C-alpha cells in the first residue's frame, strides 16, 4: 500500500475512493442538469406554441454580448481543463495559474452580464421594475424566462468562481497528483459552461433573423 495517503474511512483502496469521488460529482452534475431542464422545457414549450413571438422577443437580447460571453466562458473552461492536466503532471504552480485564469475569466463573464442587465434595465426590458414595458404577453414571458435562466446560471458561475479560487488557494489540492479536488472543480466548471452553451442558442441565437 504505497500511495494510500488521504485514504478515508469507508474505503479500503485509494483508487476506489478516487473513483467514488469522481462518480459522486458526476451524479451531482446530472442532478444540476435537471435543475436547468425545467427552464429549458418551459422555453421549448413556449417556442413551439408561439414561435414567431418568441423569435421577436429574443431579438431584443444583445447578441454580441452573449457571443462575447460564450467565448469568454469557453476559454475559461479550457483553462480549467489545463489546470487538471497540470495537476496530473505534478506542476502545482501551473495548476494555480490556470485556475486563477479560469476564475478571472469567470469574473469577466459576470461583468459583461451585469453590463447587459443594466442596459436592459434602462430599455425597460427588466420585468417587475417600475420602467418595465412589453409589447405583449409572450415578450414578457420570454424576458421572465431569460432572467430566471441567466440569473440562476450567474449564481452557478459565482459558486464556480469560489470553487476555482478555493482550489487555486489550497496547496493540497494543487499538489494532489490524482487531481481529485481540482478535477471535480473543473467538472463543475464545465457544467456551468455546458449549461451556457445551451442557453446561448435557446435565448440569444433564437432572435437571429
Amino acid at each position: 500500500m504505497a500511495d494510500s495517503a488521504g485514504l478515508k474511512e469507508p474505503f479500503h483502496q485509494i483508487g476506489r475512493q478516487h473513483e467514488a469521488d469522481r462518480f459522486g460529482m458526476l451524479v451531482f452534475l446530472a442532478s444540476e442538469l435537471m435543475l436547468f431542464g425545467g427552464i429549458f422545457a418551459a422555453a421549448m414549450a413556449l417556442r413551439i406554441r408561439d414561435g414567431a413571438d418568441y423569435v421577436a422577443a429574443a431579438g431584443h437580447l444583445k447578441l454580441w454580448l452573449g457571443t462575447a460571453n460564450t467565448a469568454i466562458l469557453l476559454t475559461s473552461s479550457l483553462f480549467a481543463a489545463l489546470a487538471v492536466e497540470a495537476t496530473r503532471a505534478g506542476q502545482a504552480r501551473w495548476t494555480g495559474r490556470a485556475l486563477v485564469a479560469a476564475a478571472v475569466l469567470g469574473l469577466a463573464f459576470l461583468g459583461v452580464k451585469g453590463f447587459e442587465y443594466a442596459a436592459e434595465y434602462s430599455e425597460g426590458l427588466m420585468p417587475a421594475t417600475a420602467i418595465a414595458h412589453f409589447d405583449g404577453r409572450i415578450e414578457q414571458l420570454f424576458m421572465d424566462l431569460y432572467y430566471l435562466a441567466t440569473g440562476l446560471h450567474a449564481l452557478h458561475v459565482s459558486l464556480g468562481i469560489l470553487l476555482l479560487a478555493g482550489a487555486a488557494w489550497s496547496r493540497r489540492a494543487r499538489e494532489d497528483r490524482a487531481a481529485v479536488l481540482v478535477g471535480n472543480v473543473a467538472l463543475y466548471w464545465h457544467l456551468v459552461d455546458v449549461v451556457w452553451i445551451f442557453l446561448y442558442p435557446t435565448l440569444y441565437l433564437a432572435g437571429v433573423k
Partner: protein
Amino acid sequence: MNAEPPKDRFQSPQEDSGPSYLRAGHTLRSWLLTTDHKRIAILYLFAISFFFLVGAIAAALIRLDLLTPAGDLLTNDGYNRAFSLHGIIMVWFFLIPSIPNTFGNFLIPLMIGARDLAFPRLNLLSWYIYVVAGLVTLYVVLGGGVDTGWTFYTPLSSVYANGAVVAAILAVFISGFSSILTGLNFIVTIHKLRAPGMTWGRLPLFCWSHYATSIIFVLATPVLAITLLLVAAERLIGIGVFDPDLGGDPLLFQHLFWFYSHPAVYIMVLPALGVISELITCAAHKRIFGYWFVAYASIAIAVIGFFVWGHHMFVSGQSFYASAVFSFLSIAVAVPSAIKVYNWTATLYKGDVELSAPLLYALGFIGLFVAGGLTGLMVAMLAIDVHVHDTYFVVAHFHYIMVGGTVTAFFGAMHYWWPKITGRMYNENLARASAIIILVGFNITFFPLFVMGYEGMPRRYHVYPEQFQVLQVIASSGSALLALGYLLPVFYLGWSLFRGERATANPWGATGLEWTTSSPPPKHNFVEQPVVVRGPYDYPLAHPASRDNG
C-alpha cells in the same frame, strides 16, 4: 468537523469487535457529530417520527372536523390550513424520507458488506439539512400555516393564497437537497463499495429498490426545486412564468410539478417494495421467486414513472391525445408493480411460512397495496378519472398506497430489523396484535372514502351534504383505531429497549449479510471484511442450519 482521529485501516479483529455502535460514545456530541451511517439513521428515525406525529395531529383535526356536515370545529380557512399542513408534512417530511433515510441508511452498507456510505460527512450534512427544513416547517405551522394544499398550484400559491407560502416552499426546497444528497450517496455506495463477491446479481432486493429510488431522488428533485423557485420568484418579486397576468401559463406549473411529483410517489413506494421483498423471503424461508424480475421491475418503475405525469392533468385542459398517451403509459407502469406482487405470492407458496409480526405487516401491505394499485388503474383511465377526479375516491386511492403501503412497510421494517438495530427482542404477541389493529383500523378509516368519492363527495371540502355523515363518522372512528395501532408499537418497542430479551445475531434465520454481524453491529459493521460467495436468498442452503440460537 468530525472529531475522529484517522484510524489504522487494517485493524486486527480484536480491535474492531469492540463496543456496538450504540455504545461507541455516549455524549450528545458523539451523536450529533457522528458520521456513522447507523447513528445517522437513528437521528433520522427521531426526526421523522416527530413529523409523523405532527402530520397525524393535523389528520386528527381534519377527521374531527368532518364528524358533522357543517364542519363545526374549524373555519373554512382553518380546514384548508389543516389539510395543507397535513399533506405537506406527510409527503415531504415523512413519506419521502422515511424508509430511505432510516432503513436505507442503516442497512445498505451492512447489506453490501461496506463499512459506511461512500460519503459519511455528506450523510450527516443531509440530516442537518433535513432538520433545517423541518425547523422552517415548524415556523410555518406555528405561524398559522398555508392554504395551498401540498401541491402549491399556481396562481393560487403565487398570487392569491394567504399565509406563509414562501416559507413553506422554502422548507420543501431545502428538504430536496437532503434527498438529492442521500440519493447520490446511495448510488455511489452501491457502485463502489460492494464487498468482494457482492455482484449485482447478489445484491439484496432492498438495495435494488433503493438504487432505483435514488435515481429518482437525483433526477426528479431538481425539477421540483426549479418549479418552487419559479413560484417564489413570482410571488416575491413578480418575475413569473405561471401567472397569466405576467404573461405566464398555469398549466406549465402543473406539468413541471407532476413531472416531479409522480416519480415522487415511487420514491415513497419503491423502498417499501424493497422492504416487503426482504420480509417475504425471510418469513417463507425460501429463495425469492424471480429475483431478476423483481430487481428489474424496480428500475422499470423508476424509468416509466417519469413518463406518466400527465395522468394528473386529464381535466386540466391538456389535449385529448396527450391524455390518451398518458393514460396508456400509466397503465403500463402497473405491470412491474404487479410482477412484484405475483413474485411475492409465488415465494410464499409452499414456503416454510412463519406467521411472525413482520410477515403480518407484509401481508397487510400486499392487500392494501393491491387495493390501492387497482384503484390507481381505475383513476389512470381517462373516462373513470373524469368522474372521480378531485373526489374522495382519489383521497382513498392515495391513502391506500401511501399509508396502507408505505407506512405499513415502515412499521414492518421496524419490526423486522428492530433486533438488529437495538439488539433487543420485543413482545411478539403485542406486535401481531398491533399489525392487525392497523389493518382493521386502516380499512375502517379509508374504505368509506371510496364509496363517498364514487358518490360525488369532493375532496378538500369540510362542509358536506348530510347523506355522507354516516360514512364520515365511520371513517373518523376508524382513524381512532388506526391511531391506537400506530401508538402501540411505541410502547412495546420502547419497553423492549430496557427489558427486552437480547437478540442474537440472526434471530429470524435470514440470509442477508446484515445478519452475519452482531446485533447491534459494531461501529464499523463487520469485524473482518466479508467475502460473498452466495446469492442473497440462498435459503435451501441456509435453512434450517442458519437458525442460530446463541
